[in-house]
């Protein structure tokens, strides 16, 4: 049996569904991200798990314990979870030590043990030199670590993080990302991580839950998300994608707005006549010469953006524009006539 089981969790605010039929199983030690655009219900789901929002329907089970559903509704303080808030919520009237020790104090752990435990987590988050300070003497990143330490100190079975890095600058964000991942590997804690930043989700998670308008769109590993999105929303939300309309004609597809015809991929068996094809910009190859393959298509460069490590071109193919990203030194000026090579598309 899975460590955490969430069953058809639903939250309705008046007539609007913030979250609808959310079901998920999480294994012990997994790092799960909730990813989606603003307002899609990530925070609402997380807060239902924490116990701050009462679900309209559904069931939540952690380990063998039912924490919500069938008449049970454990209060947040009874759920034994760790949580890191977007605003850190490090108490300004307590020192770093007092902040981190608080959960243990509540549990009436004895003084000596509190000290040991706190210094252990303090070391883990690298705050040894700051334990006596007040939060207003700390930087944003340090406050973030205090919040992490406080959440970890009681060795929760599950750690909840709601956009913990969104208040930090880009450099620090990269650093904290690595640190959080590192902490998880060392402690083995199960993590649910809410973010609207796909880079964060892709780089840290074992599995990602993509949500839109309160409904789960896809659950899967970062690779699955990127390479085989199950619908247009996921394909669009994760990474960048060229969407092309196509019409099926026997065993081939005609790309609308062009004269290009491609063979029907083996994976496509929906039988739909009108389909959407997705191509990642970096999966499209630019080649200098047309070599008459069915997958080689004539086009012209109409836009060019130099981004340092890559160059992004917009290639006009008949009436359609395609984004193409090349990492090689192929540096072509505007108006160059080029040929492109399309990989096997993902089709909806």
């Amino acid at each position: 049996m899975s460590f955490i089981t969430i069953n058809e969790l639903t939250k309705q605010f008046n007539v609007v569904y913030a979250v609808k039929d959310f079901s998920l199983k999480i294994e012990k030690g997994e790092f799960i991200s909730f990813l989606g655009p603003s307002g899609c219900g990530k925070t609402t789901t997380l807060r239902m798990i924490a116990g701050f929002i009462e679900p309209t329907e559904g069931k939540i089970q952690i380990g063998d314990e039912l924490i919500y559903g069938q008449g049970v509704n454990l209060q947040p303080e009874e759920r034994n979870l760790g949580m890191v808030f977007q605003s850190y919520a490090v108490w300004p009237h307590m020192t770093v030590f007092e902040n981190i020790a608080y959960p243990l104090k509540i549990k009436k752990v004895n003084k000596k043990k509190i000290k040991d435990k706190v210094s252990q987590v303090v070391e883990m988050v690298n705050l040894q030199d700051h334990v006596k300070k007040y939060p207003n003497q700390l930087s944003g990143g340090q406050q973030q670590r205090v919040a992490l330490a406080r959440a970890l100190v009681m060795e929760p079975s599950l750690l909840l993080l709601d956009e913990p890095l969104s208040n930090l600058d880009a450099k620090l964000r990269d650093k904290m990302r690595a640190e959080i991942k590192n902490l998880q590997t060392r402690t083995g804690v199960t993590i649910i991580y809410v973010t609207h930043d796909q880079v964060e989700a892709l780089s840290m998670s074992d599995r990602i839950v993509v949500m839109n308008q309160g409904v789960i769109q896809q659950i899967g590993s970062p690779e699955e998300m990127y390479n085989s999105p199950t619908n247009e929303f996921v394909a669009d939300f994760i990474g960048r994608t060229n969407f092309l309309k196509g019409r099926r004609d026997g065993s081939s597809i005609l790309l609308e707005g062009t004269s290009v015809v491609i063979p029907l991929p083996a994976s496509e068996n929906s039988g739909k006549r009108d389909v959407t094809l997705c191509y990642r910009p970096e999966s499209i190859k630019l080649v200098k010469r047309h070599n008459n393959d069915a997958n080689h298509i004539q086009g012209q460069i109409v836009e060019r953006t130099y981004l340092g490590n890559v160059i992004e071109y917009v290639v006009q193919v008949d009436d359609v524009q395609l984004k193409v990203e090349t990492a090689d030194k192929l540096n072509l000026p505007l108006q160059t006539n080029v040929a492109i090579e399309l990989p096997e598309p993902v089709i909806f």
Partner: protein
Amino acid sequence: MKRLIKSGNWIYAIAFLALAILIIYPMIIIVYRSFTSENELSLQNYITVLTDASMYEVLWNSLFVSIISTIFSLIIGVALSWFVSRTDIKGKRWLTLGIMIPFLIPSFISAISWRQLLSPVGYLNKIYMELTGATEPFVSIYGPWGIIFVMTVSSFSLVFMITHTAFQNMDSSYEEAAQISGASRLRVMKDVTIPLIKPSILSSAVLVFVSNISNFGVPSILGFHESYFVLTTKIYQLLNDYTIRDSFSIAASLSMVLVLIAVIGIWLQYYLTNKKSYAVVTGKSSQKMIVNLGKYRVVITTLIGGLLFMISVAPVLAILATSLTKAYGLPPTLDNLTLENYRYILFEMPMAKRSLVNSLILAFGAATIAVGIGIVLAYFITKTNVKGRQAISFIVSLPYALPGTVIGLAIILAWIKPLPIFEVSIYNTLWIILVAYVMYYITLAVQTISSSLIQVHGSLEEAARISGASWLQNMRDIVLPLIKPGVISGWFLIFIPALSELTISILLWSSGNETIAVAVYNLQEQGNMTSASALSMVMIFLIIAGHQLSNWLSRRMNG
């Protein structure tokens, strides 16, 4: 001369002269007089005050009623703001309205109405005696506990407003973090919520304490009967007692005690608001942690609603009832109802008619003059880098921080003789009250206008000057239109309280120059409760109308 006019320096010169005459001169005079006896410099007044045991009693009374009423106001105000902002109590809008009513009613009116309810012959005592057949009244509002009660009722709204804002601004993730750490709701309150709003609680405590120790109306209306004196009423009594030699100088030194207390208060307030480690970080979190009152919800709502009805609505009803009855003491039955009292004060009784005109002139004049000088001073404080402009800002804020009694006395001492050099005498005229109001309230104009001016970016003015506008043209065409909302709200901030001002006017009025508050005070002292009540109702009406007009104007200007 042309350059002087162009640079606008002459306007500053006029404003500083006004500041010197209006504020600095009286402040110096009152300190000076406290150190003079029989026209010679001496410590005699302080010796008189410090060796008189009855003065210690007065000081003790002042501290006692102020401290106890502050504690009660804190308990009630914080509890109410917690219930309104952090529980699912019902009818929050109505409760908030009930809490704000006492804030609109001047405290001396509140004292008069409670006197009508709970004096030995008051409505409630009468009902009690009728119902139980008792021959003794249930309670008497006279004396220290009555003063404490009315002061509490008049000041818990302030505590509510300050702590309610603190509750609203506090990021509730602080509380949620404690809860998820395993703390129960009560524990969260004790360990996180209360410590985080402690600075607001303390700062409202200081405000309430200083305002209560400065209060004159309540202790005079409820204390004189029992010869229970506090500092403000003692000073008033000294000034009206011509049997004591040097009574003005003794009053001046006694008022220095009040000044000392107020200064400590200002310092504490400053210290508390600037203490960094307590700055509560505010967040965007919109969801507040709401405590479910569960099965107590209805009971608690009813209890608080009932209590608020008692302390907010009942006194207004009492005054209204008295103002509509033929004679004070008659039960307000249909037979006894009449509008005669209103006709009498509005159209017949000269003093009441006069007082309405006087107060309107004074409030209008004080607001307008204070705003006029305030614009110049605020501009000087916020837009120039002249050294010492902070000193100006301090001087301007001083009078309002001091008890009205001290201001009234300072003005008397300064203007009892014609002003040196200028040789103008305004003693025993309406204008001395006007001068005192301007002195007292001017900081409200300077503060609101300053905060508007700070919003006006320097480049806007530079653009005007580059386009060829003189200082005055820039002021008229660019600055004033931009700060108009601040100017208007500053004007009403002075106009409304000035309409009902008692403490200063009671020291400065002379026959023919009564303000509404003085007229009400005198009428109720004479036992003419029906006229006093009718006039009070007219005053409350004017205050509410002023608030409505002010709100309407600011809504209209902000979009």
